[in-house]
């Protein structure tokens, strides 16, 4: 990824990244700079289309002179900063955070996590068999998508996607606090009683599979979900004149879910209910 977007030219900030000179446009985050330099920093709550809430803390790095570690995804690079991404201190925090997460929720459908757990030598089991977990039954209350909060890491992405960052429906928020904090719709009711408009943009951004298509959920339950056998084809939604891009995920000649390319400058991965869920007629073969 390039850290140099088009638009009004911005001043360059010079700082030190792992001992090397780095130059990024003003306003860039440390993570932007890391990615531009080809460095690998784990992220979970950061999303390419949203302003991160910097809540997961797996991306922390060491900024010289700072009392605490800084979230690379949100801390902006400043002139003269000295940043180190791979110190013992940063690695320790990432390791513990991965252990805390993996010991409290089901990360089996979170991409990359298994690999980070190995890389950081995290041992989620060491808190013992009685460590408190978010053990929640999946909520299946409609035909379009399923909420399985036993997998939720509270990254706030769905809240932001449904709220003021994209959809403006404000159907989702965090309720409760501390370990009891949960993603919920109003009055913690079923989705069908909520302000949800089923655009599915929350599913698009959810990094853990806590929100998933009912089709995917059912196939996983039946043991038939197999990403290896799926193809992804990007096409144009035919419902209305907006012309959003759709990526159809097809397994065994059936559409199993619909996503949308995040790098599309108009839609940034967002769709409406028709584009996201209205694919049945395509495969109606009668």
């Amino acid at each position, binding site marked *: 990824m390039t850290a140099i977007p088009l638009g009004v030219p911005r001043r360059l900030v010079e700082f030190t990244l792992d001992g090397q000179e780095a130059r990024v446009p003003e306003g860039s985050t440390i993570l932007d700079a890391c990615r531009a330099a080809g460095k690998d920093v784990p992220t979970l709550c950061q999303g390419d289309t949203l302003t991160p809430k910097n809540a997961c803390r797996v991306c*922390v790095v060491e900024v010289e002179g700072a009392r*605490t570690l800084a979230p690379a995804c949100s801390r902006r690079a400043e002139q003269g900063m000295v940043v180190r991404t791979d110190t013992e201190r940063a690695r320790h925090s990432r390791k*513990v955070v991965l252990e805390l*997460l993996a010991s409290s929720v089901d990360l089996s459908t979170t991409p990359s996590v298994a690999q980070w757990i190995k890389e950081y030598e995290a041992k989620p089991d060491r808190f013992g068999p009685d460590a408190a977990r978010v053990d929640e039954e999946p909520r299946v209350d409609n035909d379009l998508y399923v909420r399985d909060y036993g997998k939720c890491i509270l990254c706030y992405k769905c809240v932001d996607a449904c709220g003021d960052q994209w959809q403006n429906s404000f159907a989702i928020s965090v309720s409760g606090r501390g370990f009891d904090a949960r993603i919920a719709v*109003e009055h913690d009711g079923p989705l069908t009683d909520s302000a949800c408009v089923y655009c599915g943009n929350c599913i698009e951004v959810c990094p853990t599979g806590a929100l998933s298509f009912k089709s995917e959920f059912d196939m996983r339950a039946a043991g038939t979900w197999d990403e290896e056998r799926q193809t992804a084809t990007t096409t144009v939604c035919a419902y209305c004149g907006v012309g959003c891009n759709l990526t159809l995920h097809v397994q065994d000649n059936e559409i199993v879910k619909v996503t949308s390319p995040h790098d599309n400058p108009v839609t940034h991965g967002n769709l409406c209910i028709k584009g996201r869920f209205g694919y049945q007629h395509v495969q109606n073969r009668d």
Partner: protein
Amino acid sequence: MDLRFGDGKPTDEERAAVDALLGPPESSWEGADRSDADLRWARGGREARDRRDLLLPGLHALNDRIGWISEGALDYLCRRLTVPPAEAYGVATFYAMFSVRPRPATVLHVCTDLACTTAGASELCAAVEARLGPDSGVKVERSPCLGLCERAPAALVIRAGHPPSGDDPPRPAFGDEAVQAEGGSGGAAPGVGNGKGRRRETPYATAVVAPATPEATIIATTAPEDAPPEPAPALAVPQAGHPSLTLLARIGTTDPTSLDAYRAAGGYTALRRAFALGPAGVIREVTDAGLVGRGGAAFPTGRKWQATAAQPDHPHYLVCNADESEPGTFKDRVLMEGDPYALVEAMTIAAYATGAHRGYLYLRGEYPRALARLTHALAQARARGLLGDDVLGQGYAFDIEIRRGAGAYICGEETALFNSIEGYRGEPRSKPPFPVEKGLFGKPTVENNVETLVNVLPILTMGAQAYAAIGTPTSTGPKLFCVSGSVRGPGVYELPFGATLGELLTLAGVRDNLRAVLLGGAAGGFVRPDELDVPLTFEGTREAGTTLGSGVVMAFDDTVPLPRLLLRIAEFFRDESCGQCVPCRVGTVRQEEALHRIADRTGAAAAGDVALLREVGRAMRDSSICGLGQTAWNAVESAIDRLGAYE
């Protein structure tokens, strides 16, 4: 924004509670009956959204009147304020004092925190629950520190009901009758109710019982208005009346409900001096005096004021942090109850210096008497032109609004406090940007602790030089300490910076067999009885590897079971974590689990879990978003390292 509201309908009572705060709705968009005008005109949009900060007062209005917040009531409030119901639900479920499930109108909060546990809170709880029986119609809740540690064990009764009918809240007088008047009914009407509408048998009432016996607690619970009166605030100041006092000088000597008495005792001379000096002059005095924040973080006040005053963006806001929920801390309560005008005057000066015309006093929700006293003081100051459009005839406009917290220690964190006032969940924001640049409502904001502000008065009356001569070169001025636990005279003590811990404890009458002292509160650290010569200054405590924090000094003798104390601290932080970031949300849980496992173990049997505590604690300190997660492990770590807990 396309908001969808539920079909839930408020009851008449719920509607009345909300309307008493917001006035009657104007259109069907806000929940009124549909009128012809509604077809062509809709309120909402920006105009209504600007009132989102009334969400917390609205939730209080419902909770005070009904005792809990129903779906219909919440939806109605959301309609009135154009707030998405999901977000309002998230806010309502954030605070410990609110419930979104039905519950009895009377809630009894029994403190089970450090000082109260040591003074027998568990036994009190058990006795009260047994006496009340299962069908009492009272909800008994175990509460974190109620800020009454000098009178432990403590309990607080809140009975939901109609606002006290009729006119103004009863005007509390000073002296014995005063205490009568304010003892039972909590003095002030919560919210803005004017008492019109149906009069019910049970008006809203609060009662504070401390020290709490089962008998007194039962009386207060069944009839809060008849509860025995609260002891006068001066009783929390063992040195009251002593000529050496500066910050506490008026407590016990000057009627806290009388503006005339305050002025006769030197009140408002500091504000006059401020007007004479001009804003820049005031900031110079405060800077030269070396005043450092008393809220825990010890940030230089003058620098904060200067940085805010210099911001080109307007308006500027002033926020007084009176949330005081750190276990062991009660100094701000005593100041507000015993000398409320001092805080009003100090806030006026701070606002004048930093260019703010509006101040918010964010007051801990569990402080009914402080609320009553300050509400009264504000009204009096307004009536006399000491607040309002033209303060002291100087052409400077300033007013103060009280915002009640609702049971969340995290809301004392400066940015969480902004979110709370704004009607969002009390989750800390990440910094930068700092409040002086983008604070309340995204505008430059000065936020100061109550004690910090009150220090500004002597700085202006005695002058920066004389003030800076008190204490040590880097910790200047007088300092308040909240002493509780195993001492004969628990209370708020005022000493110049630099006195030693031992001197303070001697003054407070420390009992024999001292085992440990918790310095700086639950986020502070323990020190040993052989370390009592540590000087009580910022630099001195830092050198000794501990902290002054919010001025807590809690003494424990050797009858106190240390592991249980540590568990309580861990439980406190687990309960109070906002839940936003992983190290704190899950880390506090894992630490509490480990402490449970080793509660009765030592040596090799505990070693594995102690190592785990350290590893988790280190990550929490390094990578949590805010001070809560960053300091949650301090006290337990110090107990392991300095007291040899679990060895």
